[in-house]
């Protein structure tokens, strides 16, 4: 059986993503090896940590080129999670030095901005269970009732897409928060499906069976 590659770019906790893939009945491998990623049926880009460090690690290991080839050229199904999703943007203002934003992979015409809820009582990070309202259907959300689209979020920055067609769903936290984006064989979630119980497992299971 072909394996599911979980991209290793030096972040230290991918255990729950790996466990969730196993729980769904698939065979995960945490790797940054080009051949292993080339052999995988599906690719997951997890994410915890800071944008700048993550991009530096990705470039230093040549992961950007690997993903360009396997995901964008060969069309392998791809899921990016949390910071992983933000890395697909053009830029991020997270810890931007001297006002110069960090450059991302640029797969989506989007920028990553600090959350600024319009209610001062709403705290940053946006942390906890929140609902996602769908802008459109997508295979990774198949068979999940709308009233059950509650997911676990932990983040202080979020993506803003220029092309509304890229957005699959928003959460609300004193502002619309881009929660799910997708185009072609690429999907990404700001929340952590691997921490979102049955609904998150359902989403991951949908992704692992997705063959766009």
């Amino acid at each position: 059986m072909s394996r599911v590659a979980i991209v290793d770019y030096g972040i230290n906790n991918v255990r729950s993503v790996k466990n969730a893939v196993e729980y769904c009945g698939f065979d995960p491998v945490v790797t940054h090896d080009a051949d292993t990623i080339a052999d995988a049926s599906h690719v997951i880009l997890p994410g915890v940590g800071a944008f700048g460090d993550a991009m530096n690690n990705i470039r230093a290991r040549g992961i950007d080129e690997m993903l360009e080839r396997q995901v964008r050229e060969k069309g392998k199904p791809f899921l990016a999670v949390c910071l992983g999703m933000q890395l697909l943007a053009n830029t991020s203002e997270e810890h931007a030095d001297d006002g110069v934003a960090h450059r991302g992979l640029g797969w989506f015409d989007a920028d990553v901005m600090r959350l600024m809820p319009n209610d001062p009582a709403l705290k940053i990070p946006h942390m906890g269970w929140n609902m996602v309202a769908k802008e459109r259907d997508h295979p990774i959300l198949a068979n999940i009732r709308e009233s059950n689209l509650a997911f676990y979020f932990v983040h202080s920055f979020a993506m803003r897409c220029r092309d509304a067609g890229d957005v699959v769903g928003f959460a609300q936290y004193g502002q619309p928060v881009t929660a799910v984006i997708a185009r072609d064989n690429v999907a990404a979630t700001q929340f952590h499906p691997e921490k979102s119980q049955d609904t998150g497992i359902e989403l991951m299971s949908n992704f692992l069976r997705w063959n766009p």
Partner: protein
Amino acid sequence: MLKKRLIPKFLLRDGRLVKYVRFFENERAAGNPVTTAKVYNDYGVDELIVLDIVPSAASRGRVVDIIERMSEEIFMPFTVGGGVKTLDDVNMLLRAGADKVSVNSEAVRRPEFLREAARTFGDQCMTVSIDYKRISPNHASVFIDGGREHVALDPIEWAQRCEELHCGEVLLGSIDRDGTMSGYDLELIHKAASVLSVPLIVSGGCGSLQHAIDALEAGASAVAISSMFLFTDHSPIKLRSHLFSRGLDVRASFSSRN
């Protein structure tokens, strides 16, 4: 908006689930933590809190093993604590699968530790756990070392100080009400919720569905529950559907299946 949370609280002693009344009385064995966690997972609770109440070098290994086993089959946030004193302790628990680490006595002894840990791992990873007792009708005071040592701190002022030190969340527990199932300390919860800006998890006293409603209406972001889930027929499913039917903003359902 963020949902109010239902959180079973597990106390571990030598790797076994235990429960007391007012921290020291009526020890009861409550089973295997991993098995019980799986049952609660099926019941759709929102998070789990796991605290090692008699921490030692040997018990840390057991806790790590338990968290690793839980994270193989249970996909929700875990807060883990008990005897956390160093950045290495925090790192070890996060690597085992914890999403947040709870600090109690060490934060009182060395407040800078909380700030350092928040700087290293992120505010969202650090929960401060505060146990308190009413020492007179109008005066509450913090206790550390599992309720053994009295320190001259007001629990609400201490919680505010922890917020300044960048804790991401406060777990506030009444020792007087622990295990009694006599209801939460609503007065103190109301006061704490009105001055804190980080989420407030309350613990100690939940014995009925109404008690949980009262605490959430008093301003708590989450209710931690131990005895009621372990020793009564009020399951998390029953509590969630009751809260939902009363209009509280909790997750609607635990199952994603159509």
